[in-house]
């Protein structure tokens, strides 16, 4: 075991993947010798050379187009998009190419070796363009897998699974936790399953669901609620696409209550998809309406970030409202 922050865990996963298989390539804007603006790829050029970890020109559609081609050739392409907010020039490559590569060719070709890493989320005074949580846009796209870790241990295991998974994976990294989240991480290789949620803490009165950085917020809200005698079951969804209906439904069948918190705006966020499905699966067991605690339907703000942010107080209020329904 070693103490690592989330960035170090990601760096360590990349290191292990590149050592394990010399067809793993890592690239993106500033990701070469400099190691990326967050330093997630630092040291990789020194270790594996400029042919395996390198800078790209500043062109996101080019990065993902290039990565699609490289993956279709049989390599493991690990492409970094510097901020999730800057992924949209690559939307066409991801939605129309990455996601449909296998299906449209009748499995003659695929880009299963592709992993797109990108930091997402707010809480860093980043304004409109360094704060967004774009998962819902991509969750509407069959053919992609979407994964996001909540801490260093999860980050390493999930990223190693993502890189070697036989499907393209969008790996969303909670940048607010890059350095803030630390924990014990095994130094050797290990993987965590994609498509499986993680029950972080068992409880009996209410289920709290989130993914990525929002898990930490839920844990804090649960601590407050526990003081009121409310027993919270905390679930980290981990994979947004495909998502683990079974684990969530099983929990809600037990508690009868569900609060989903997400950083992104309310309308058409992934929480809405979960609410619809869980309502169907658990309808007769629900004690209160499924609650979505989310951002407002506005662009991510700067000066009102604190007010906009889905913090533990908002989740706590939602827990109480659900219990008192």
């Amino acid at each position, binding site marked *: 075991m070693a103490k690592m922050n989330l960035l170090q865990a990601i760096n360590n996963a990349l290191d292990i993947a590149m050592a394990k298989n010399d067809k793993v390539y890592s690239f993106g*804007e*500033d990701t*070469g*010798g*400099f190691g990326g*603006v967050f330093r997630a790829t630092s040291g990789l050029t020194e270790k594996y050379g400029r042919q395996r970890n390198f*800078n790209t*020109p*500043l*062109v*996101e*559609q*080019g990065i993902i187009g290039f990565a699609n081609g490289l993956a279709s050739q049989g390599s493991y392409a690990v492409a970094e998009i510097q901020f999730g*907010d*800057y992924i*949209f*020039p690559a939307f066409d490559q991801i939605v129309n190419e990455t996601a449909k590569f296998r299906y449209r060719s009748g499995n003659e070709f695929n880009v299963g070796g592709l992993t797109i890493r990108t930091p997402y989320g707010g809480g860093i*005074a*980043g*304004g*409109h*363009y*360094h704060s967004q949580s774009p998962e819902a846009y991509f969750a509407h796209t069959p053919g992609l897998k979407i994964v996001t870790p909540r801490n260093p241990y999860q980050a390493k295991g999930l990223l190693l699974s993502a890189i070697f998974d036989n499907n393209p994976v969008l790996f969303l990294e909670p940048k607010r936790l890059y350095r803030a989240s630390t924990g014990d991480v095994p130094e050797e290789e290990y993987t965590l399953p994609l498509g499986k949620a993680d029950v972080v803490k068992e409880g009996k009165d209410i289920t709290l669901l989130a993914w990525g950085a929002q898990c930490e917020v839920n844990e804090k809200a649960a601590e407050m609620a526990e003081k009121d005698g409310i027993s919270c079951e905390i679930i980290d969804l981990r994979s947004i696409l495909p998502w683990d209906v079974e684990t969530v439904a099983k929990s809600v069948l037990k508690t009868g209550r569900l609060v989903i918190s997400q950083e992104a705006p*309310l*309308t058409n966020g992934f929480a809405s998809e979960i609410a619809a499905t869980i309502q169907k699966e658990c309808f007769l067991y629900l004690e209160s309406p499924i609650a979505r605690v989310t951002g*407002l*339907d*506005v*662009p991510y*703000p*700067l*000066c*009102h970030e*604190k*007010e*906009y942010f889905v*913090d533990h*107080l*908002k989740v706590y*209020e939602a827990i109480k409202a659900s219990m008192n329904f």
Partner: protein
Amino acid sequence: MAKDTKHNIDIVTEASFLDASALTIPMLQILKEDGSEHKGAKLPEFDQALAEKMFDTMQFIRILDERMIAAQRQGRISFYLASLGEEAASIGSAAALQDGDMIMGQYREQGALAYRGFSVEQFMNQLFSNAKDLGKGRQMPVHYGCAELNFMTISSPLGTQIPQATGYAFGQKMDKSGHCTLCYFGEGAASEGDFHAALNMASVYKVPVIFFCRNNGYAISTPSQGEQYGGDGIAPRGVGYGLKTIRVDGNDILAVLRATQLARKLAVEENEPVLIEAMSYRMAGHSTSDDPTGYRSREEEDGWRKKDPLARMQSWMINKGWLTEEQAESNLQEKKAAVLAALKKAEKVPAPSIDELINDVYDQPSEQLKAQLDELKAHIRKYPDAYPKTSGSID
């Protein structure tokens, strides 16, 4: 030589490939590094007042950048982005325009905005995201914008403004406005697809647009030559798309002014889109989040320090008899005082009202948004200590 008349192309019978040497693009320079004029160089149109305004703006931006980087280090603002070393490129080009011409910036052209007349108070209000910021505190520092001054609000994603400039200029042409659009971007942003779309469409539609590329050597840590592009910079792309193209010394304000004056003429009088590539160097880090010591040497920076555009213009102004060392120094001190006073004032202006959170998403807030705001306000009233910036001012 035979000709394919349909395409107006010469026919050859021997296979030969062109390489970059087929097009070598020189760089216009009027002022040498010591501030003296090249003999016989054709000068831009200017008078003493224009020269003084350019110099004054350069000094102001130098001070503003220096002071605001310090303010960021002190935790007074969250972020800053300096234009150190590139002041001549933005100010010299802005000085060639008319006030009615549109400017679309990337994020390192505070010089152009200051030249247009954005006041030190306006700069500060944006940087402090306060209630007087024209952008209502919604964007990160340095994302300025001002309709009155025809300066389009900055957006962080790179290159998005370039095709917008083509579209804006198309409208100006159709309105017979007699105005053009000048669009700034860096050599990194010129890798984006938007750049290529913009130049091609401008060439097809023949619109009055000036694409102004600040080639400052770095996109964050990525050096231009060999890692951003393999060819001879950005200028040859202009020729490839059929645009009038020129390369200038971006640290020579007279060369920038001259090239942009001629470009404006081409754009406005002949509807010829133009590409200007200004060769310069980003003396500052990319932003306050960046530390250039991680990717470039002190020696490299020192080499460029000798080409400092402000020092070069200052020497030229002194040679002209339009400035003395003492005046330059006292102007600098005046600007320092003005910047500091404005900073202290802006810092005390409260944040925009929480009501602004839902305004301008649409022309009118929807009923859903109003309900979301009401819910948020009720929550803030319940936990006033957790939201100190707004809890004191909600109704």
